[in-house]
């Protein structure tokens, strides 16, 4: 199937946008001005101003002399790109591939899209209607190549649809500038009396290249479809994505739920056939007020089970604000990995970290309480007890083996050691008494000290002397003294853990 492109030219983009924002500017001649070599120069004018002979490039003072009630607004740098990007994102309603034309227009790859709106004419009509509703004056053209569509959007009369057969003949009567040539080349062509494309299209290629450069040949070929022209989409469509346009607006949770189920089934079906699985997926809801609601879900292992993915999204459905209504749902796979189908046990045995049931459980927990809250630990090569373990990736297949367990270590470790009041004989005997949370503990048995040094390459501070102590009730604690004993300074004791 051949490609089809639609070019949209927003003739009065800046002024239309200003009128859309400030209603009092409606119905008055309006220009956008910018400083240029110490003069105020008009860079854009609306239809009313143009009717009275004002065009871009005029000096503002001259224009004021012609039209006394001329309204002028300062130019905002970067505005055109911003507006076009927003419009391009919104145009995803019509097609997934939309590119920006920096001269003030949009280019869309609409291959295989028009029939969804009941034919090309209806499609263009819909585009025009939507843009008019927004307040933009557009000229739209559809053709087989980007070049032809662009030419007719600028130089055609009204909205045009160019058939494949008619393409070569249709462009003949357009001006030379419609080929997107540089200004110098166009001027040179005009000097030679070559005003329309038909005047030079049949000339020998070598003669054209010699006189006007290679660019003219490339543009001609692109316009006629002899060579391909790449299109750089604003948001390139994901490799695995499903879309669901809705005829009636969706604004209920049930509606969203049905849409999500449908999309997940379709996407997973596609992935299952290719033995792929999702790691990260985005569910986007496009509302009629041009806002997009996004929900994102991650899994720890590639999966393509629609019911599991639905469960992950289920909690979020209530947080989607439908606003005036949702017209389009898109499900995009952000991260896709291939699935290794492992041999499954015939009877359910005990779980390993790799088993599907467990990874689905972890996904559900991580989605609800946050992925940073579900952890397994691996040993870390550090001396301080609070740093001797660190979270490991849940996907790790090889569990770490080298846990150190040759010294007594507590069952519970406080994240931050808590200061305690201690009575201890000097210089380094274990303490006799300590007070923790207003309760006095008399120490009966003790073990230690075990000195743990600070890691000087990471942080400064005193070393710690740890004691494993047992009070008269049989409770066992881990205490440490920070630093050496010295007569002239105070040394702080801390409680760091509880033994079993």
């Amino acid at each position, binding site marked *: 199937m051949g490609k089809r492109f639609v070019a949209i030219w927003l003739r009065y983009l800046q002024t239309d946008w200003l009128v859309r924002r400030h209603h009092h500017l409606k119905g008055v001649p309006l220009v956008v001005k910018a400083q240029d070599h110490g003069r105020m120069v008009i860079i854009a004018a609306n239809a009313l101003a143009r009717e009275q002979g004002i065009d871009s490039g005029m000096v503002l003072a001259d224009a004021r002399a012609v039209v006394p009630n001329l309204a002028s607004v300062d130019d905002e740098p970067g505005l055109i790109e911003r507006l076009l990007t927003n419009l391009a994102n919104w145009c995803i309603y019509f097609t997934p591939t939309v590119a920006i034309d920096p001269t003030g227009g949009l280019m869309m790859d609409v291959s295989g899209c028009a029939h969804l709106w009941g034919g090309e004419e209806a499609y263009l009509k819909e585009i025009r209607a939507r843009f008019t509703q927004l307040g933009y004056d557009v000229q739209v053209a559809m053709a087989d190549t980007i070049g032809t569509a662009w030419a007719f959007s600028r130089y055609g009369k009204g909205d045009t649809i160019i058939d494949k057969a008619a393409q070569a003949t249709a462009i003949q009567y357009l001006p030379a500038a419609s080929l997107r040539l540089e200004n110098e080349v166009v001027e040179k062509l005009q000097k030679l009396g070559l005003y329309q494309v038909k005047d030079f299209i049949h000339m020998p290629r070598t003669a054209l290249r010699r006189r006007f450069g290679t660019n003219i040949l490339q543009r001609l070929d692109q316009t006629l479809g002899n060579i391909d022209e790449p299109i750089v989409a604003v948001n390139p469509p994901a490799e695995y994505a499903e879309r669901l346009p809705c005829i009636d607006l969706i604004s209920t949770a049930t509606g969203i739920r049905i849409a999500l189920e449908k999309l997940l089934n379709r996407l997973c079906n596609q992935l299952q056939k290719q033995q792929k699985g999702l790691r990260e997926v985005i569910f986007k809801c496009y509302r009629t007020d041009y806002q997009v609601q996004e929900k994102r879900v991650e899994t720890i292992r590639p999966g393509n089970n629609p019911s599991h993915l639905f469960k992950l999204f289920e909690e979020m459905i209530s947080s989607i604000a439908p606003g005036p209504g949702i017209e389009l749902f898109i499900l995009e796979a952000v991260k896709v990995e291939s699935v290794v189908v492992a041999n499954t046990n015939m009877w359910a045995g005990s779980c390993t970290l790799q088993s599907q049931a467990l990874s689905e459980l972890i996904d559900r*927990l991580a989605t*609800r309480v946050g992925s940073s809250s579900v952890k397994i*630990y691996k*040993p870390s090569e550090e001396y301080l007890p609070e740093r001797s373990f660190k979270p490991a990736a849940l996907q790790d297949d090889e569990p770490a083996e080298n846990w150190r367990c040759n010294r007594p*270590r507590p069952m519970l470790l406080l994240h931050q050691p808590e200061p305690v009041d201690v009575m201890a004989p000097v210089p380094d005997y274990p303490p006799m008494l300590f007070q923790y949370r207003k309760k006095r503990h008399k120490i009966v*048995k*003790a073990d230690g000290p075990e000195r743990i040094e600070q890691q000087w390459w990471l942080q400064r501070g005193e070393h710690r002397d740890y004691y494993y102590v047992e009070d008269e009730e049989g409770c066992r604690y881990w205490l440490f003294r920070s630093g050496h004993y010295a007569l002239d300074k105070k040394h702080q004791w801390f409680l760091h853990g509880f033994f079993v």
Partner: protein
Amino acid sequence: MENSKAHIIAQLQREILPLQGFKSPGSKAACVDLGVINDVFPDNRFPTGVIHEFISTDREGVSSSAGFIAGILGMLMKDGGVVLWISSAPLLFPPTLSYFGIHPSKVIVVNVPKEKDLLWATEEALKCEGLAAVLVEMRELDFTASRRLQLIVERSGVTGFILRQNPRKLGTTAAVTRWKITSLSSIVVEAGMPGVGFPCWKVELQKVRNGKPGCWELQWQGKKFEVIEQHEEIVVNDQKRKVG
């Protein structure tokens, strides 16, 4: 005649037990051997696939209960398997688990800050067949919630340990057992020697469905629980009580 009557009663007892949530383990199930404590349970074995409730009043109690549970978990995980440790503020120091024969990398720690999510997370975890066990640090547990959890484990066969620190209300729950573990002074091999001995606990089984509650003094010795024959500290404590 007498014999056959006893036989019939025993058989009926065996038939009733599965209806009450005590499932007989398959050949694959790991055996938890608690020594003398085994005898008080129905069928003379530690019940798996049920909810166990542990009560503690302070952090020291949580620590000793966690140690006792870790000992049981080590036996449950002998043939592999994964344990979930759910808490609203986990203080667990993973390297210590290896002391009880648990591979620390087989323990998934889930930090659930909200009370509401805690019960949800517990239910989801208990539903996951094939987990060796689920340990939850949860303060309050009412009868309805405990009934829900018990019904879930009866279906999935996962053993659930609920560790309650300082609960406000100690009402009836549907858990099969209720334990209270407090630490005891450790025994030093030779009197007068310095150092701290093996961890010792006073294990109170306050409630057990179809069994006999009891109280024991246990010691974790290397790889298994040992009953302490005689404990000099206890005598001292008794005297204190009489005086006070």
